[in-house]
């Protein structure tokens, strides 16, 4: 009797998910196999894998380059976001004067829109008037300004930096919460056993925080791959396709070329890649198990 009642309680949540997540995903997946182009909707029909073929074999916008860019974007951003975020969390763990204010300032980046961040950093990296160039020249590392965003070899690094700045607060908050849940008795016991700080870190802190690390990395991976805002505002995928990731190409297809069919095809590719990644990732991190000392 009770069980049936609880099942009914799930209905609104299920309807909500269906309407706002499952239905659009289904619709988008269908569109990937149609020639859905706003330019002319009168000839709408299924066109098999044509959209995928067009995206994968575009002679001007090479797909291999886009995949490569996405990988660099993901791993470059993720690694530094995680390391710096973890470091931040460790530093903030112990109370100090002004900790609250400092925390607020550091986490401010997370509240901003990606597009706004991109526009601001585009000016910071500007080749004539940018602050970054100015500072590097003043401290003697450069003799004349460089065009960070116009150099194909520097552009990707230049867009990853704001992304790192943006993502550090997320890891900071989540890992700080996880760190604060580690019972102090364990540290005391470790000290009594003669463990130094590094040993304490690897044998007490990390295993305890492991589940949080696993889930935050998975989440951030999904979000970073689907985060075109900063790149869109700074370089729009250029120069010469070197900062174009799957998500920015999808935006170009949909908003500039009105080609929802090809855009959906790219969306489907992103979904499949992330799904495969998630499966692999969870399987790998599952084996080690969540230790509870």
């Amino acid at each position: 009797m009770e069980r049936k009642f609880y099942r009914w309680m799930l209905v609104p949540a299920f309807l909500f998910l269906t309407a706002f997540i499952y239905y659009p995903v289904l619709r988008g997946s269908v569109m990937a196999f149609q020639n859905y182009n706003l330019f002319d909707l009168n000839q709408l029909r299924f066109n098999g894998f044509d959209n995928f073929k067009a995206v994968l074999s575009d002679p001007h916008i090479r797909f291999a380059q886009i995949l490569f860019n996405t990988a660099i974007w993901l791993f470059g951003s993720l690694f530094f976001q995680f390391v710096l975020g973890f470091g931040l969390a460790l530093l903030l763990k112990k109370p100090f004067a002004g900790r609250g204010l400092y925390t607020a300032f550091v986490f401010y980046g997370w509240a901003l829109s990606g597009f706004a961040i991109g526009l601001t950093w585009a000016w910071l990296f500007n080749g004539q008037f940018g602050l970054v160039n100015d500072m590097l020249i003043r401290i003697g590392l450069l003799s004349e300004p460089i065009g960070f965003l116009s150099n194909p070899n520097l552009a990707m690094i230049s867009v990853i930096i704001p992304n790192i700045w943006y993502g550090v607060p997320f890891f900071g908050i989540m890992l700080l919460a996880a760190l604060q849940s580690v019972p102090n008795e364990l540290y005391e016991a470790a000290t009594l056993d003669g463990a130094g700080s590094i040993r304490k870190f690897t044998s007490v802190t990390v295993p305890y925080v492991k589940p949080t690390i696993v889930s935050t990395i998975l989440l951030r991976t999904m979000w970073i791959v689907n985060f075109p805002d900063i790149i869109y505002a700074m370089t729009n995928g250029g120069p010469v396709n070197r900062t174009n990731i799957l998500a920015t190409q999808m935006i170009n297809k949909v908003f500039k070329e009105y080609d929802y069919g090809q855009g959906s095809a790219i969306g489907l590719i992103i979904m499949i890649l992330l799904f495969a990644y998630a499966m692999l990732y969870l399987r790998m991190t599952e084996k080690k198990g969540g230790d509870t000392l």
Partner: protein
Amino acid sequence: MKHPMTILLVLCTLLLVLSPAFAAGTKEEASGPVTLTFVETMTSPSRTAQIQELIAKYEAQNPNVKINLVSPPYEQADNKLTLMLNSNQELDIIEVRDHTVKQFVNNNKLVDLTDYLKTWDQGDDLLPLTMTAATTVNNTPYLLPQFFFVKGLFVRTDILAKHGFTTMPKTIEELYKMSIAITGKAANQYGFGFRGKGSAFKISDILILSDVDNINVDNIYKTTDGSFAFSSPAARKAVAAYVDLYKKAVPSDGINWGFNEQVNGFISGTTPFLVQDPDTVSMVAEALDPSQWTVIPMPVGASGKTYLDYGFAGLGIPSTSKHKDLAWDFISFMVNAENNADFCRAYGPLPVHTSTYANDPYFSSGVYKSWEIEMSNPATYVFVKYPLDNPKYPAWAQVQEQTMQSLLLGSTTVDQAIKSWEDYWK
């Protein structure tokens, strides 16, 4: 009843989730004021304020009508409007642009305005170019253009004087020479306000293709004998000259310059030449003293002509409107000679009535004199069209940007670039 509070909570959530289905809105009353919905897409705060002023003026003259202005943010506005039209929302007046008119007509979203224009007393006062723009698709007027965006050459006369130049460049060759001569990289002084990304082809095409003598006015990428415009020897030379200009008169960062960077370069004096539309005038006028800058007509190419693209935006009536006649009444009010001139004076672009150029000193003197010259000398300033109704057009911007950037960076040769463009348009 078990757990009454929980059941109540569940019911509320259910209603909340299902509420979008009821969000269609109520039907209008038969009596009382009629509300027209007007969607603009080239949204900017000052422009929206001006539109509101004109709306207030109209509502004062027509107490039975209310105009509801919808102003989505500029970057998403065209897409928002497309989605609104495709979901058959009831709209009455919409802003139609040169690159959206074909798409709207293809999807049967616009009303044919021929009859309305025939009976309009100001119909004859429209510039010939206005009617050409109005009938872009299928030779039928699906919109009434409100303004034109035509390129002009903004010049920092003070910077030119500093480097010993007192005359203005009349040809593109002179422009390039002056830009290169002014450039002194050590002093952070460059010559040309380059456009590297975001529809950069709109500027590079003028500078390159104006060297070709026989461009087809109905398709800038074709010559009158049907061959591809960039394949001619003159165009080939011009592409090489354009790359040379980038290398010698533009900071390397220029490849990534969009509108903001171009204007910034001009205002800061780093690049004293700027090819831009008239709506840039108000931005520049706010930042600089009138003695520091001017606008001259676009310099001509080796063909003795300049090929100018005319961007335009105007108002149309969606086919789903229930108040088409009233919508036309408002449109003809917004775009009548007097209101059009007022609007353009405040917002910047070029008005659409012949009488405005003849009678209004604002548009026939000062910096606007240059555009007046461009609009009234068709033998020298030739207006050409882009192949807007070719399904390959929407994707062209990204393709051209890639190949052009590659060319400017030296990873492709001029011949390879031209070949890939030719292959694209086949």
